[in-house]
């Protein structure tokens, strides 16, 4: 079954090439992308099943034996991440297709959208599967370069401005990562993660701390951890709604995944655990205070995104199986929910003509379907029982309480406070955008449809969105699918927690990973 492992990387890359050849044939492009991503979901699900039953699956790329060649490893953590991200990317793709068709720009001008989107998926999958530090860097670069293109789509003034910050900050983090890789290679003579396990253990303590610090810094920027998070709320909201959604769901989580992987596999023992806990607390509280102060739905959601990264770091910083397991569960939950909320925000922008809270109102009456699509994931994010956000937070609180340290208790308190403030921020959006009387500037349903038809093809991809257009069915359906997926997480929470606990155990024991790559012991 191990031949399945490279497919989540290879298929989107081939799909990207194919869609690039099909430029100008929007219909064919759409079908290729959907087929490829649907196949990726299926492969990822198979990988999850196999890795749960038989342990990690390993492929030596090109047939080169392990320490010489690059390995791809699908253990439970990687497979779980793959399943969730593939499902989410598929839903977002359908949403963006719905948006493109509704705007009537079948050909214009974004023939690059599909190829870039598939390359992004390939990069994300590569980062999850990589069993080699340099290959992880390549995966990051693939997804980042694709994200630069997606973020500056249409190259309007606003997007260029936001894109500049994003590109420069990402470049800096990549450089730090690259330097760390150079130093690690110089110190150990290998970059294979499984081989690094022993060799890093043999290094002097101070050197290890430097290497660990550099990796944490690089991944911290990508994951938007508090002092390094300023770029995120500025750059994400300017992108088209589906792009923001997929970035919010996946990109920061790849950073979190990299932190989990390196902190458990390469640098166990929790020397930076206290630092991580402090950063987690700051990320949670500062992030959510930012969200409370916002008056635009997209920016507000970006701040909640930063804030909730803190929950995942909380779990990682505890360095117990319980904490890690809860963190993994929380990552799965957050990928789904944050993406759903951004998609719903995109629908709000379509219906209300804006995402600024002072220009919205009465959406609950004007568009009950939209209200439900926003309300359910919003409560889920805030952690209202019985949604998965509640279960994830309960897991983290349990882990914190059983740890019992002062810092852990402080984080439990911080986590509950953040949850409460998230509810406040979300309730504010609900009151202003959905419950109060409709704003006088709000477009009537149908206004925008006519406007969109008359402007027709010159209209750049969703910028500005044709205000007041009735919600396109495909967009609503894909958002609804993600809402249902989010609710499904509650239903399958039991088995999901089992998987995440297994994954956390394997991560802490380290041996299963090393044995899978080197059945005869590391050279």
């Amino acid at each position, binding site marked *: 079954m191990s031949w399945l492992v490279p497919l989540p990387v290879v298929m989107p890359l081939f799909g990207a090439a194919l869609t690039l050849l099909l430029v100008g044939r929007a219909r064919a492009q759409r079908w290729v992308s959907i087929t490829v991503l649907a196949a990726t979901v299926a492969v990822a699900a198979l990988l999850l099943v196999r890795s749960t039953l038989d342990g990690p699956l390993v492929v030596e790329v090109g047939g080169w034996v392990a320490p010489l060649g690059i390995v791809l490893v699908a253990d439970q953590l990687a497979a779980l991440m793959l399943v969730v991200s593939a499902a989410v990317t598929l839903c977002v793709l359908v949403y963006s297709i719905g948006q493109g068709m509704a705007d009537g720009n079948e050909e214009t001008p974004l023939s690059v959208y599909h190829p870039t989107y598939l390359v992004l998926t390939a990069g994300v999958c590569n980062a999850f599967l990589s069993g080699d530090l340099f290959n992880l860097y390549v995966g990051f670069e693939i997804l980042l370069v694709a994200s630069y293109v997606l973020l500056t789509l249409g190259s309007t003034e606003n997007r*260029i401005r936001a894109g500049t910050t994003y590109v420069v900050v990402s470049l800096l983090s990549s*450089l730090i990562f690259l330097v760390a890789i150079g130093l690690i290679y110089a110190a150990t003579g290998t970059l294979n993660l499984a081989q690094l396990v022993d060799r890093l253990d043999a290094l002097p303590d101070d050197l290890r701390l430097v290497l660990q610090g550099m990796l944490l810094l690089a991944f911290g920027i990508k994951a938007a951890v508090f002092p390094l998070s300023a770029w995120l709320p500025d750059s994400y909201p300017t992108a088209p709604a589906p792009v923001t959604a997929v970035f919010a769901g996946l990109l920061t989580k790849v950073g979190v995944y990299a932190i989990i992987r390196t902190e458990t596999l390469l640098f166990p023992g929790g020397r930076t655990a206290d630092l991580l806990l402090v950063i987690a607390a700051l990320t949670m509280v500062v992030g959510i205070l930012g969200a409370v102060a916002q*008056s635009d739905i997209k920016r507000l959601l970006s701040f909640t995104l930063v804030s909730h990264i803190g929950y995942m770091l909380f779990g990682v910083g505890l360095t117990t199986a319980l904490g890690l397991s809860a963190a993994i569960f929380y990552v799965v939950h957050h990928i789904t929910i944050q993406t759903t909320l951004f998609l719903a925000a995109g629908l709000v922008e379509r219906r209300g003509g804006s995402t600024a809270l002072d220009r919205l109102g009465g959406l609950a009456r004007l568009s009950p379907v939209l209200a439900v699509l926003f309300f359910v994931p919003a409560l889920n994010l805030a952690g209202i029982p019985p949604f998965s956000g509640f279960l994830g937070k309960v897991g983290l609180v349990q882990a914190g309480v059983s740890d019992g340290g002062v810092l852990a208790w402080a984080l439990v308190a911080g986590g509950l406070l953040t949850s409460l403030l998230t509810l406040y921020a979300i309730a504010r959006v609900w009151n202003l955008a959905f419950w109060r009387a409709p704003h006088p500037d709000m477009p009537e349903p149908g206004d925008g449809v006519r406007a969109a038809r008359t402007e027709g093809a010159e209209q750049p991809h969703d910028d500005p969105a044709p205000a007041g257009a009735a919600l396109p069915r495909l967009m609503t359906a894909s958002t609804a699918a993600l809402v249902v997926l989010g609710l499904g997480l509650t239903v399958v929470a039991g088995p999901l927690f089992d998987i995440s606990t297994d994954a956390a155990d394997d991560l802490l024991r380290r041996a299963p990973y090393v044995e899978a790559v080197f059945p005869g012991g590391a050279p």
Partner: protein
Amino acid sequence: MSPNLVYVVVVGVLFATGVTLLLERSLTRVLMGVILLGNGANLLLLTGGRAGGPPIVGTTAEEEMADPLPQAMVLTAIVITLGMTAFLLALAYRSWHLNGHDEVQDDVEDRRIMVLAERDEGPGTADPETVDPVPARAPDGRRVAAGDPGRTR
């Protein structure tokens, strides 16, 4: 292996100049900074492996071979840097096209807070909860006067 002093000094100088340029406002200079930093990082990667003859079996004795892995990594990194340089150039050009300059601009939020601070008003004044959009429209489309008790928020 023991690192070569010349290498280390060159890497240091490249990093220092790169960081200085990265802190500039003009995107073109930032780009120069990124290129210098990238080259510094590539050289640093190279110092990680052993220097020696071409690593091809039959041409060099095994103990005199150079370590090929850092070279392979540097090649990859060079390609990535090249792509990034092209993209940043395009960004800078587009920014110049749109604004007449290529300077990295402030965060929108930062600028708003700055303007408010200059006017000596708290950021709270822009809050939609305190500035209610009047007149709101009643369900039947009739304008409702401010302060009307029937108005819902």
